[in-house]
């Protein structure tokens, strides 16, 4: 295990140190550009709502994009909570910049709602709701996912209260002050934050699991007759974990490259551990895909084979291959080697490939489902529907919304410091560089 950056430990000696938000001026070219593209994305969304209200096919690519955000940006904060639950010391510098992604993810809710509204009736087709018909699927899914997003945002806010209260945050209105729980740092308040963040984190994981199961079934599986795969929600979740870690790696790399506030705290320790996680999830991805594929191939039930023809073998072959390479082939054969996992820039490169590949994977999973007309019945899908390529407005939509995500992230990171001051201090307090006899060694305290 690599040792932390000296600066991270040196904080202890600098009581004056305060985390600062990103220094991004409105005139910054990148920032402004992202803003314009984000506006374009919003316009595209409104146009789509106005023009094609409940034509499901026109929401195919937006849905794929939403699923992509669900598995990248909405999953990224998990790493923060997991390292917090397992007391992973390497995670201190990246917890906040991971948690910040829960705010951009919040916006993708705007895509979910209209596309949920276009779902056909549940009667006469397989669905997770069986006989139950009250407010499903639309309302139930919207509710679960909404809960999840709110929990994520609340968690992010909660864990950044100490910094906001102490830092030079430019929103000190009465509302803010109440949102900051009149933070004074009393023992009780600290206790509250610690326990609340733990439980909210666990809650968030569960909501993610249930919510993903719901939406992936209602907007994916149940729209293609004969596609019956119990592992599919899990596959979606795990590929999401991988993409989430990838997002964090890219964010970490970019921030430590361009922001002097963060650079000193990010080092090999983060690279090594994030790389390890990425490798683990890459392997798991393949495992979950294979567990799905080999069974369908072996049992050869016509209905399942037809579904596989659509998703993998025949109709959406190209997005599938692109996704497979991006999610598994390229990353696996790169990060299996230690030297790659020690270099943050290499990891960032691989992660970019993973994020893009993940998008292609979502396309091949949800575009056929959302654009499929013959949704009723159980039997094999015949004839196979044709492939739906994105048109210009789809592409503009995707580009605009991707930009919107980044834009919102930067905007938030300007206000809320992307590095968690109090947790950095805690980490510095719990770790000491000492010497054991003649050997250089790390001392880790594990408070219970």
């Amino acid at each position, binding site marked *: 295990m690599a040792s932390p950056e000296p600066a991270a430990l040196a904080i202890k000696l600098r009581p004056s140190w305060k985390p600062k938000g990103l220094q991004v001026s409105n005139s910054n070219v990148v920032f402004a550009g992202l803003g314009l593209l984000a506006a374009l994305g919003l316009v595209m969304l409104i146009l789509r709502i106005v023009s094609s209200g409940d034509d499901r096919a026109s929401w195919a690519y937006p849905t794929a994009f939403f699923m992509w955000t669900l598995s990248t940006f909405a999953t990224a904060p998990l790493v923060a909570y997991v390292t917090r639950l397992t007391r992973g010391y390497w995670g201190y510098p990246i917890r906040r910049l991971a948690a910040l992604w829960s705010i951009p993810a919040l916006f993708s809710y705007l895509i979910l709602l209209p596309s949920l509204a276009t779902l056909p009736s549940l009667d006469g087709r397989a669905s997770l709701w069986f006989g139950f018909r009250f407010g499903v699927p639309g309302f139930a899914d919207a509710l679960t996912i909404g809960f999840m997003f709110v929990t994520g945002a609340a968690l992010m806010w909660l864990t950044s209260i100490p910094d906001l209260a102490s830092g030079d945050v430019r929103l000190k209105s009465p509302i803010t002050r109440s949102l900051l729980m009149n933070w004074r740092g009393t023992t009780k308040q600290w206790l509250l934050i610690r326990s609340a963040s733990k439980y909210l984190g666990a809650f968030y994981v569960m909501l993610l699991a249930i919510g993903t199961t719901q939406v992936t079934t209602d907007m994916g599986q149940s729209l293609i007759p004969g596609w019956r795969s119990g592992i599919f929600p899990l596959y979606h979740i795990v590929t999401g974990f991988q993409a989430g870690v990838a997002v964090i790696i890219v964010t970490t790399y970019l921030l430590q490259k361009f922001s002097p506030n963060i650079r000193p705290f990010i080092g090999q320790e983060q690279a090594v551990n994030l790389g390890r996680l990425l490798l683990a999830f890459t392997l798991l991805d393949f495992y979950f895909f294979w567990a799905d594929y080999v069974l369908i191939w*072996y*049992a*050869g*039930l*016509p*209905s399942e*084979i037809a579904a596989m023809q659509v998703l993998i073998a025949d109709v959406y072959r190209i997005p599938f291959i692109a996704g497979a390479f991006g999610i598994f082939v390229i990353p696996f054969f790169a990060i299996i080697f230690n030297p790659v996992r020690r270099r943050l820039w290499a990891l960032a490169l691989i992660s970019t490939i993973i994020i893009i590949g993940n998008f292609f994977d979502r396309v091949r999973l949800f575009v056929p489902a959302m654009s499929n007309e013959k949704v009723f019945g*159980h*039997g094999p899908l015949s004839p196979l529907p044709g492939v739906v390529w994105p048109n210009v407005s789809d592409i503009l939509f995707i580009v605009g919304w991707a930009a919107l995500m980044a834009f919102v992230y930067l905007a938030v990171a300007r206000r809320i410091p992307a590095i968690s001051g109090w947790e950095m201090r805690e980490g510095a307090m719990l770790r000491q560089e000492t010497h054991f006899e003649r050997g250089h060694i790390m001392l880790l305290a594990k408070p219970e």
Partner: protein
Amino acid sequence: MSSIKSATDESAARAATVAGGATISEEERRAGFGHRWGMSVDIDLCTGCQACVVACQTENNVAINEEQRVTEKRAKSWIRIERYWEGEFPNAKARYLPVLCQHCDNAPCEPVCPAWATYHNEEGLNVQVYNRCIGTRFCANGCPYSVRHFNFWNPEWPDSLENMLNPDVTVRTKGIIEKCTFCVQRINRARRDAAQSDTVVKDGDISPACVQACPTNSLVFGDLKDPFSKVSEAANSDRAYHLLEERGTGPAVVYLKKVDPNATSSSEEHHG
């Protein structure tokens, strides 16, 4: 889901594909290849008389099923008549469904055998090689028609029958799986005879014991690749369907549904 499909254009089309359509040349027939042995079962004609069951029992040296064997559900019968009751007592109807090995093209039983004990031969028969079988019984689990039977003990016959076994058929020892072979011994004999008399195996030359014994000609055996055989005719009829079609096993046994207009699927009421 119902396993008995109403005869739609789709099922007719499927039946056509079963029949294969293409005729085969004299040479192929002389070579003995190019057959796809199949059977058609006309539910409309079946009276449930069990003659086929007995015939099969004697032809293939299947051990006698005493009462105890039946009660403990270990009775071996390569072909069985499934009986489903329909309606309530005063006007209850019995529906009969003869089930035998379907000799599937995509047989679920074949690939799961670790010892190659069962495989698909070039005439489309799902053959069981007794001396390769090691008794894992995986094939019996995989078979959706439950037509594979396990020998829990060495077969025994009363002395009167000991010397009346069919010499063309192996007596299966304990610990192995056995099942319907479409009376492969008769197929081979017919081919030998044809070869000796320098003719070809014509439709109707071969008849397995069950077909031979069927009093109502509900069972018909023949070559599905021969477009003029009775079986192909049946396969092309708009009454044709396959058992458990949704499993995609591609059976060689074609069932002809009851003509009775208000017939309901024999497998929709459970625990018959």
